[in-house]
């Protein structure tokens, strides 16, 4: 494996130095550092697709940079610009503080692809291409599944952190359940953290003698939720719905675990989609500018295999 | 010796008599109570312009309380304070300052990282527009310090100044306020003789401008030298007010204590024949002491004299492994090297620091914890500290060292200075040491306790312990020791014994200059 990578890099390097040097293209990829499961998935997929692209296109160079916070990401973007890039694929740690750095790159004529997190002025002054998962749909899909499968369910919700993405998901969920018989008893924040989700679930179980469904919004938190249910020895909970598509949860869906019948996709692999599209637009000269919103696909035992990446850390 | 009797009734002549000087400040029947306890009982005090009026008394006699009443830091419980014959009352120090009464605190209350000028003008900065006007303040500060006869760059950070210069800056800061009465609370406590002399000169200069100077001090020779009038307090009562010329230091001491204390030092039988228990050869503590050699005999009390900064404390700390040092140390003929304090303690040498509160005792902890701290392994049984044994040890220490405490549960910080020193002595004696090194055994301790501590030291030597006493009080060394080693600038300048143990000899050795007696005398 390692040899292969080395070979590919070598190949890319020689071809850069060779005849095609004049047309050689460089794509910079700026993403958050792996600080939790989902971003770890982003890093994994960015590196995976970078390798694959460089193998496919001889005269393509892809540089992947990770940054822990907006300030260092702004620096990273500047560094990339100095190195000379033809396209920038960026998943901002926090979009608004980074808008100026991105616009600067774009004004120099660089093709900019923005992924997942959009600034308030998400238009073509900031980016050429926008690729994102569908946050409201992530909530809506979960809500619809609950309304369909268990129309009279008593539900508790474990949210993430109080930030806009979380609110969008919650709004989508609430909208999907409007007018149904599903009873959402309470919502609490679990901070996208397993230990906090465990704690919140324990307290929910203490508070409510009957819970049918728990929507935990994120697969990491589901780990804590399942442990709390098991410890309480309660059998009233019929199932738990997470979100995002971690390999552990996809595996459970694949294996037909009754507690995890489905998962809702908000895949970190979307960074790969963005990179593929960007390179396609530049190398193959097909039009790609615009917005690409990925569906929040409902992962079921039937289609789970397509979304299972056993090598990914997430 | 002329006998002068104490007692409020026999206070000196009528106030207006004092050389025709005008009365500026007086108190009548001034009392102060904390809760149900009255600590000042009806003090009548009269202060005139152009005089230095010393207030003396043992610790706890009420000197500081009286000064704080006058400066507005405390409110009286009864009686009257009058300025120019007019009754006043101060809610806070600012109101007292407005009437011209200012206080120079004993502690240095300056911000170390600010410059001299910034400190002097702290809280009353001169502005130009929105910004502070450093140029003007620096010039004013230079002038203010110059008036005290000092030459200090106003832009120097205070942290770089010596203690004496800091004190001058503090005085300059106080004198910037228009003033008619200046109160000095033990200003010379931490100064060297030369510095003390300079400060006394400043005080005289202030007096000669017609200002009244109130002055608290423990150093009776100093009081004798500078004061015009002396008021003695004892247990919250005014005992007497006399013209300074009528009192010798021994009279002052008697009035303070209320009994005859001419016999301060215990009688000792000297024995020069004991074998050497500790021999030091060529010992160097980098930066403090160089190539020092001396020997200590069994049962001996060896004094160490010298000016502040001569390196006496540092030499001892170096020998005991409390700071880095090198040289030969022989304990009963055997060469040893202490690289950590514990090694010296185990070998039977203890050191009682001059800094009792900072290095000797845990002020917030109870007496028991303090007593057994150094010897805790003796009180440990099966991993556990044996509290019963600790209790017994505390009872014994309180009895043997006459530690006066209201309760055994008090924190060490709540004891008086003298009792703290006794507790520290008891703590170190628990280690059953052969050699005891005591640094400034009676600093800040009143005369009654002093006498007791001298007695303990003499008894220890009689019991076969060898003792080194470091002190800045020459009479103490002369009265107590068999021999005195004198240090100067980190080196051993000489040794005096027998007839040679007099202040003159010591001063010559300590300063390296013959006939320098006057400066040294100021140190007390």
């Amino acid at each position, binding site marked *: 494996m390692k040899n292969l990578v080395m070979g590919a890099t070598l190949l890319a390097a020689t071809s850069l130095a060779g005849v095609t040097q004049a047309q050689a293209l460089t794509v910079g990829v700026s993403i958050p550092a792996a600080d939790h499961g989902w971003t770890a998935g982003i890093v994994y997929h960015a590196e995976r697709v970078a390798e694959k692209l460089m193998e496919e296109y001889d005269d393509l160079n892809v540089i992947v940079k990770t940054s822990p916070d907006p300030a260092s990401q702004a620096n990273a973007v500047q560094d990339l610009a100095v190195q000379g890039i033809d396209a920038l694929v960026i998943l901002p740690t926090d979009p608004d503080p980074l808008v100026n750095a991105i616009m600067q790159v774009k004004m120099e004529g660089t093709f900019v692809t923005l992924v997942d997190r959009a600034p308030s002025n998400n238009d073509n002054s900031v980016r050429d291409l926008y690729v994102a998962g569908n946050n409201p749909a992530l909530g809506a899909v979960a809500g619809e599944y609950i309304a369909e499968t268990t129309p009279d369910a008593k539900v508790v919700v474990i949210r993430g952190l109080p930030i806009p993405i979380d609110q969008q998901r919650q709004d989508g969920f609430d909208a999907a359940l409007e007018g149904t018989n599903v009873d959402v008893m309470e919502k609490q924040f679990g901070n996208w953290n*397993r230990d906090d989700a465990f704690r919140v679930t324990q307290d929910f179980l203490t508070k409510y003698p009957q819970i049918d469904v728990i929507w935990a919004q994120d697969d990491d938190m589901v780990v804590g939720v399942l442990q709390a249910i098991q410890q309480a020895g309660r059998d009233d909970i019929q199932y738990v719905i997470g979100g995002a598509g971690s390999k552990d949860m996809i595996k459970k869906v694949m294996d037909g675990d009754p507690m995890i019948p489905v998962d809702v996709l908000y895949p970190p692999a979307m960074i790969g989609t963005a990179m593929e599209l960007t390179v396609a637009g530049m190398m193959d000269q097909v039009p790609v500018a615009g917005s690409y919103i990925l569906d929040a696909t409902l992962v079921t035992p039937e289609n789970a295999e397509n979304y299972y990446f056993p090598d*990914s*850390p997430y | 010796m002329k006998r002068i009797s104490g007692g409020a009734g026999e206070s000196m002549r009528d106030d207006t008599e004092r050389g025709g000087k005008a009365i500026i400040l007086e108190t009548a029947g001034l009392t102060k109570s904390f809760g149900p306890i009255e600590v000042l009982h009806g003090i009548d005090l009269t202060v005139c312009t152009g005089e230095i009026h010393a207030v003396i008394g043992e610790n706890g006699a009420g000197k500081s309380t009286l000064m704080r009443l006058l400066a507005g830091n405390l409110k009286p419980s009864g009686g009257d304070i009058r300025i120019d014959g007019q009754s006043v009352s101060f809610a806070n120090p600012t109101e007292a300052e407005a009437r011209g009464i200012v206080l120079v605190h004993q502690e240095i209350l300056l911000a170390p990282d600010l410059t001299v000028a910034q400190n002097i003008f702290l809280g009353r900065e001169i502005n130009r527009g929105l910004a502070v006007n450093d140029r003007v303040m620096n010039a004013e500060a230079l002038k203010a310090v110059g008036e005290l006869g000092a030459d200090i760059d106003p832009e120097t950070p205070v942290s770089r100044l010596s203690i004496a210069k800091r004190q001058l800056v503090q005085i300059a800061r106080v004198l910037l306020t228009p003033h008619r009465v200046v109160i000095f609370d033990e200003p010379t406590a931490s100064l060297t003789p030369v510095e003390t002399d300079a400060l006394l000169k400043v005080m005289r200069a202030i007096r000669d401008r017609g200002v009244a100077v109130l002055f608290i001090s423990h150093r009776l020779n100093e009081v004798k030298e500078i004061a015009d009038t002396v008021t003695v307090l004892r247990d919250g009562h005014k005992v007497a007010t006399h013209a300074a010329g009528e009192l010798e230091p021994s009279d002052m001491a008697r009035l303070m204590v209320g009994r005859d204390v001419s016999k301060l030092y215990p009688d000792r039988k000297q024995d020069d024949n004991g074998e050497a228990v500790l021999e030091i050869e060529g010992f160097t503590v980098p930066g403090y002491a160089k190539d020092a050699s001396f020997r200590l005999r069994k049962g001996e009390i060896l004094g160490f004299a010298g000016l502040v900064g001569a390196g006496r404390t540092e030499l001892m700390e170096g020998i005991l492994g409390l700071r880095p040092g090198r040289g030969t140390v022989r304990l009963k003929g055997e060469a040893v090297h202490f690289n950590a304090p514990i090694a010296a303690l185990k070998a039977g040498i203890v050191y009682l620091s001059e800094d009792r509160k900072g290095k000797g005792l*845990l002020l917030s902890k109870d007496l028991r*914890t303090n007593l057994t*701290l150094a010897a*805790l392994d003796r009180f440990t049984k099966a991993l556990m*500290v044996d509290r019963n044994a600790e209790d017994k040890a505390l009872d014994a220490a309180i009895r043997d060292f006459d530690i006066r405490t209201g*309760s055994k549960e008090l924190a060490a910080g709540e004891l008086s200075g003298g009792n703290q020193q006794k507790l520290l002595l008891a703590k170190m004696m628990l280690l059953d040491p052969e050699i005891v090194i005591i640094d400034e055994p009676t600093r800040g301790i009143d005369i009654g306790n002093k006498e007791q501590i001298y007695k303990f030291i003499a008894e220890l030597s009689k019991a076969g312990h060898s003792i080194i006493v470091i002190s800045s009080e020459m009479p103490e060394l002369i009265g107590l020791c068999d021999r005195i080693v004198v240090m100067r600038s980190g080196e051993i300048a000489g040794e005096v014994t027998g007839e040679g143990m007099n202040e003159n000899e010591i001063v010559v050795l300590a300063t390296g200059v013959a006939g320098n007696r006057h400066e040294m005398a100021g140190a007390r």
Partner: protein
Amino acid sequence: MSDSVKSEAGSGFLKNIDLRVMAPFLALALLLVLGTFSNPNFLTVNNLMNVATRSAFIAIIAVGATFVISAGGLDLSVGAMVAFVASLMIMFINAAAIANPYLLLVAAMILAILIGMACGLLNGVITTVGRIEPFIVTLGTMGIYRGLTTWLSQGGAITVRDFEVQQIYRPAYFGTVLGVPVPVIAIIATALIGAFVLYRTRYGRHVIAVGSNEEVARYSGISVRNVRIITYLIQGLCVAVAVLFYVPRLGSTSATTGMLWELQAITAVVVGGTALRGGVGRIWGTICGAFILEIVGNIMLLSNFISEYLIAAIQGAIIIIAMLVQRSLLRRQ
């Protein structure tokens, strides 16, 4: 001054000591009353056991922090240390070098203890021998332990892969002995040992002496350096013990494991009456402080009248109010 002497000598003395030590327990009692009104399920054995069990990690870590803080130190790295030790422990289990699952677990536990102590030792040696402020040192090692964990896990989760091992280990967190959850027993055992060492042994006395005045300790022949290093070692040991109960709960760690636990541990210590500046240490107060932190969260969740958005604000306010009440009780004496 002299009247305080009198009152301390007399009956006032008992009251004085009691109130200072009792204050956190009074606060806990008040919270229990508050909780009872907030939800009928609050005062059930089940709920209280849940809360006590959950507080085990912070409580056990905070016992170690009590030693460090009493000696005048500080350790900010404990949260990251939990993640680091737990990750290595799980990786060792996954490497499955030993076939017998019971032996494997015992070996993993011993390894965790050793790693925890090594991490603590590192903190202690750098602060004392290097003479660097513990705040900075442990901030640095916090980054190191956290970064190494993220690197080991590649940012994702590290999970016990062997289902059998996990089932064997599970009772360490979820099991009970005579109806008492194992982690609660662990809290009590840790506190008993901690209290014995701090209050009854020579070493404990030395810790308090060093924390209340380093110079006095040095002049009394105490090796300040060794005393301090050992407090960090104890802290590392406590972290490792907490890890022994953390791993069986979820069987996995992630990059967010132990996040901000250092602040919770320090809060528990201070709420329990230990002085941040050193010189005073209260083990049982610390345990009580850990309970208080956990119970505040529990009450918030069980009560129906607080918006989910406001919970953090109210938790912060309750902790400050608890401290204010404590202080004012002390001042009134």
